[in-house]
């Protein structure tokens, strides 16, 4: 009987031997039944291990698919903070992986399941589980498990930027000023539509962020209705037609115009939202605005710009007028000559992030 170690035989079964070594083992197997039997058992062990791991993966995939088929989208329309819901609709779509990480209910979001089983080219090709085409989910299919309020708040917080807090609300009544601020952040082609004819009053706007890109949120309120929000972000070449999507109680219509991506979100039905979206698309862009004129500086200040501002009294340089801690100027002076984006209101630290859900 020939002595061949398990070390060699496992390498043989796993295909790790060089060609001549494999041939040598083949010859031994032809002549030695004991070793041939051992190799058969090792092959069976190898096959069973492969099958076991494939079964686990198949379980993960079928769980994912079952979740996609049965996961209930939140259908109830709880009356509550509509503003938060509008924000969450955007966050839910945009912060796909953040949602996954924050509220990981397996599988929260798997848009690319179709690529499962594909190996990177450098990997040794190997049979993987066969996913029946009929069971493959549509690539666009997104399933969001109902989040807890902590998860929802964490996601919404991700949209807050420093500018959201820094830009004061005093100027919100002046729609032209708001349009100027939004256009500065998003681009001159951005629209800040007047929807009063549709029964929606412009309430306020704020600058959020998505990643490191500014995201404008313009909020409208109609009588006895939840808020409606128009979001605008620079990016995405070309124009596109409005596309409606329902996320739980929130409906949304998204489209692109002049290099700006828009999302209109609210609790209205599809027809109403699409009609509003068409109206907004046909609106002219925000008018080119120049900053409100700065007050003429006092002659002595322009002649001596390095003088301390405190010596100027109420007629201080407008460049510092918005910062009372520097100038000591009073708020009345600031409102008379707002300097929106160049020098925002007194800098405040953004609110601390809420603790993630434990």
């Amino acid at each position, binding site marked *: 009987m020939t002595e061949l170690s*398990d*070390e060699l035989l*496992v*390498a043989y*079964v*796993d295909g*790790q031997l060089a060609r001549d070594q494999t041939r040598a083992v083949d010859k031994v197997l032809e002549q030695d039944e004991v070793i041939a039997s*051992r190799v058969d*058992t*090792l092959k*069976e*062990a*190898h096959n*069973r*291990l*492969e*099958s*076991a*791991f*494939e*079964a*686990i*993966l*198949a*379980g*993960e*995939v*079928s*769980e*994912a698919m079952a979740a996609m088929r049965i996961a209930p989208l939140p259908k109830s329309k709880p009356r509550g903070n509509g503003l938060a819901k509008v924000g969450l609709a955007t966050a839910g779509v945009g912060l*796909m*992986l*953040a949602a*996954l*990480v924050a509220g*990981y209910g*397996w*599988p929260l*979001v*798997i*848009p*690319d*399941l179709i*690529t*499962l089983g*594909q*190996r*990177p080219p*450098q*990997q*040794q*090709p*190997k049979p993987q589980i066969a996913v029946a085409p009929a069971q493959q989910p549509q690539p666009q299919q997104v399933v969001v498990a109902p989040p807890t309020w902590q998860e929802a708040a964490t996601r919404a917080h991700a949209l807050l930027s420093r500018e959201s807090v820094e830009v004061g609300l005093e100027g919100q009544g002046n729609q032209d000023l708001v349009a100027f601020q939004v256009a500065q952040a998003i681009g001159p082609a951005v629209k800040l539509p007047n929807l009063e004819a549709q029964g929606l009053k412009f309430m306020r706007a704020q600058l959020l962020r998505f*990643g490191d890109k500014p995201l404008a949120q313009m909020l409208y309120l109609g009588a006895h209705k939840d808020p409606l929000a128009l979001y605008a972000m620079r990016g995405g070449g070309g124009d596109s037609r409005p596309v409606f999507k329902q996320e739980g109680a929130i409906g949304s219509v998204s489209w692109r115009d002049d290099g700006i991506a828009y999302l209109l979100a609210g609790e209205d039905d599809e027809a109403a939202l699409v009609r509003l979206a068409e109206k907004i698309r046909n609106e002219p862009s925000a008018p080119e605005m120049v900053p409100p004129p700065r007050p003429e500086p006092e002659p002595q200040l322009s002649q001596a710009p390095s003088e301390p501002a405190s010596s100027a009294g109420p007629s201080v340089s407008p460049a510092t007028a918005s910062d009372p801690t520097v100038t000591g100027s009073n708020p009345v002076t600031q409102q008379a000559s707002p300097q929106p984006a160049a020098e925002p209101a007194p800098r405040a630290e953004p609110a601390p992030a809420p603790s993630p859900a434990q």
Partner: protein
Amino acid sequence: MQAESHKQSVRHGLIAMLPRLKRFADVLVGEKKEGKALLRRALVRMLAEQHRYQRGTPLDRWAFAEIYQLWLHELRDHADPLGQAKTSEAGFDRLFPKDRKVEHDALTASFLGHLPPQQRSTLLLVYGEGFDHEAAGHVLDSSPDTIAARLIRTSASLADRLGSAAQTPATATIETLYPKRPQDDHDRAQ
């Protein structure tokens, strides 16, 4: 712009691999619930520190290594790392889907459930993921020789079990003093 597309590709790559990552975390921990929690923590870390991912490295290799490193790190911090690393047989068995038409291989499931986590992960990476020894060694922070040694030990051990299991039915027949004959049921029915 490049950094943004890099981030996007890492994110999309991770999403596409989620079931594979979940399987790795489950097999490593030996239990579904803890595996899911480990994967969640690892994903948070991977997304926060994705700048550490070097272009050219296979993303799955990096992601598996991140999960393993996190698991190891947390285990070392635990007051009873050995106790923590133990796997319950029932917990591991739940990793296998029971509603499939494919017959459940209880022997292999039990065998895997009793292995130490590193050995289980080695088997998964080589036999489940098709990694070569070097790539598996990179993930598990071990040399290719160590990977080969683990494969030999575990394959031989499972083969021994299979060999002994194959002999069991013959022994059982001999030990049956009053074997039930097929006609017994027939007679009783009459």
